[in-house]
């Protein structure tokens, strides 16, 4: 499985990344992408800024291990994970996951698992700054439950 992991403070263009990913495919019949966006209204009314922190080196290693897991579960041709860190504005892309496989089910499930892991297990810390100051965000119960779906499969 071809893989790319990129964590950066630079804004990225999700569709340019998806297009580059698609053009490199050899024999995939399907490609699934998930793009996470900064919502204009967050946990605390209007969000003025969203900030993400990571543990350089270790966060990348954790995602690389997730991709090992994904590669062992499904026959994917390629997978891509891009994650923004630092300060972000509403409507900007935070995260992009793209997967490609011969048949669609593998691509859907792999993208789904990667997002569940990125939300609740990867080493990122997210804060929102709104009217009431800075708030550190923790995964919702739903996010933990989503990630746990894959543990016994």
């Amino acid at each position: 499985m071809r893989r790319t992991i990129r964590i950066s403070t630079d804004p990225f263009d999700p569709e340019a990344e998806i297009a580059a990913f698609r053009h490199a495919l050899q024999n995939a019949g399907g490609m699934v992408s998930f793009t996470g966006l900064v919502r204009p209204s967050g946990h605390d009314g209007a969000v003025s800024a969203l900030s993400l922190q990571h543990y350089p080196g270790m966060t990348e290693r954790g995602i690389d291990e997730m991709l090992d897991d994904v590669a062992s579960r499904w026959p994917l041709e390629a997978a891509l994970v891009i994650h923004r860190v630092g300060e972000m504005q509403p409507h900007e892309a935070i995260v992009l996951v793209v997967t490609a496989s011969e048949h669609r089910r593998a691509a859907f499930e792999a993208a789904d698992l990667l997002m569940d892991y990125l939300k609740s297990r990867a080493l990122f810390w997210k804060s929102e700054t709104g009217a009431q100051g800075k708030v550190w965000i923790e995964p919702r119960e739903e996010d933990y439950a989503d990630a746990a779906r894959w543990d016994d499969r």
Partner: protein
Amino acid sequence: MTQLLFFGRLGDLAGGVERTMTLSQPHAIADIIGLLDASDRLLGSALGEPRVRYAINGAIVDADALVEDEDELAFLPPVSGG
């Protein structure tokens, strides 16, 4: 010199992500938390919360793992990405 890293809200409590400490001999992480707690109870109790995990040089370890000088010790509160 030991590099300490405080992620997420722990960094707010510690007044920054990075801090250094000199350890003349190896200490268990629990002992280091005790040392930090002595000068800052708020930070100390936050570091000891059950959901905070610890990593030495990038590997997740338990609170009784020994930290040597030159090690990097990271305090990892609950994560949230995506």
